[in-house]
């Protein structure tokens, strides 16, 4: 394949990853890695390096809109970030002591459970009915944003803070052990446990994954896994996609975002299950 065609295909795929990433707050890895390895024959290490760049590009591209619009709850993001990053450090330290295949299967089960839990309350709920957890009141985690579809200011409380901290730590361990971003677990945690509006959960997760990916992207760069001709088109495409996806997310109804999110969670769960079973069989 001509390198120009490779660069164009990578760029176009990355635009799609950027749109979906800005919409759901999951990061672009679930699209970028299969696109590069399975379709374009890129070495897995170079694909993972490009994926870390893609996550940062999605996060910054989307946050540039979401922070200004008040969708990103930076207080929740930073508070949860401690648990998530400490978990990731624990996970990275524990690599080599814990087997991978069982973890993939556990992750698949957790993601399936999250998708089911989100499906059960797929219509969402009035966020004004959520009673603030005492920790949230103390740390002033609750917030408000103007919903452009409903045309009104939505104020929301934040519930289940200690449980969310626990889950974030566990999710951090899993992402540290398996080297995958925690975004797929962050959004369901904020949705199901903390009962935040889905747009706020997505925007807040988007902010978090960017910060998490800084350390991993720096490490991949130092290892020589970030290659200009691969990561460059990925970065440009994802940035364009995130710039297109951010206004789209703002204009969509929360229920529509939930539906796409549930679908993607099921797909990621299937990916993880295949990896877990494949490793056991192989």
């Amino acid at each position: 394949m001509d390198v120009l065609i490779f660069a164009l295909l990578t760029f176009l795929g990355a635009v799609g990853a950027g749109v979906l990433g800005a919409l759901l707050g999951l990061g672009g890895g679930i699209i970028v890695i299969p696109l590069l390895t399975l379709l374009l024959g890129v070495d897995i290490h170079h694909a993972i390096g490009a994926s870390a760049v893609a996550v940062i590009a999605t996060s910054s591209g989307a946050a540039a809109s979401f922070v200004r619009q008040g969708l990103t709850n930076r207080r929740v993001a930073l508070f949860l970030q401690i648990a998530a990053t400490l978990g990731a450090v624990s996970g990275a330290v524990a690599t080599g002591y814990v087997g991978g295949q069982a973890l993939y299967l556990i992750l698949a089960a957790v993601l399936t459970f999250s998708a089911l839990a989100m499906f059960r309350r797929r219509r969402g709920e009035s966020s004004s009915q959520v009673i603030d957890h005492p920790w949230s009141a103390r740390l002033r985690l609750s917030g408000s944003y103007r919903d452009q579809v409903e045309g009104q200011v939505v104020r929301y409380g934040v519930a289940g803070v200690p449980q969310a901290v626990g889950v974030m730590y566990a999710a951090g361990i899993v992402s540290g052990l398996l080297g995958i971003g925690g975004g797929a677990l962050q959004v369901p945690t904020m949705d199901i446990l903390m009962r935040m509006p889905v747009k706020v959960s997505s925007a807040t997760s988007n902010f978090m994954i960017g910060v998490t990916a800084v350390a991993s992207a720096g490490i991949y760069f130092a290892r020589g896994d970030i290659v200009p001709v691969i990561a460059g088109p990925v970065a440009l495409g994802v940035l364009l996609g995130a710039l297109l996806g951010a206004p789209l997310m703002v204009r969509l109804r929360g229920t529509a975002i939930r539906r796409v999110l549930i679908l993607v969670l099921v797909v990621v769960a299937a990916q993880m299950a295949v990896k877990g079973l494949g490793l056991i069989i192989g």
Partner: protein
Amino acid sequence: MAQRQAVAPPTGIAGRLGPAIGWARRGVPAKREALVEAGRLARPGGADRARPIELVISRTLRAGILVASALVALGLVLLLFGAYAGGAHPTLASVLASAEGGQPVLRSPAEVITALGRFEPNALVDLGLLVLIVTPVASLLLSWLQFWLERDYAFVVITSSVLVITAGSLLWGAIR
């Protein structure tokens, strides 16, 4: 400094009596009202304005993205132009094997700067990618500054911890 209105504590005697009145009435709606008064329940409706700090963060992110994508785009164009100037049909593998494609790959900011001095297009792409990678750190630092100015010391500690853990895992991983 700007405070979140959502959890504004109830003021005056009405605020202090709110829960008591709610309890005395024993009605569910009254109890909800009391919870809203006490700031435990999100209040529907209210003020809506972009705070200055959020505009600053948003503009900083946008600036980082613009600089990064300009550098990456220019570097990529030069890199591909260089690859096609040879005459043959370059593939991903041939570009990866060539100096333009980043072989040997640059692994540190110092190496990128040195390669920039030799006008290597891959160093231009790498410089853009490095700008992109540090962009989220800028929003962390601005958040830290905001909490410091608002004397919100709990969040100064929280944001500092995030910065320290990020820097620590970056150094630990890069050295390994």
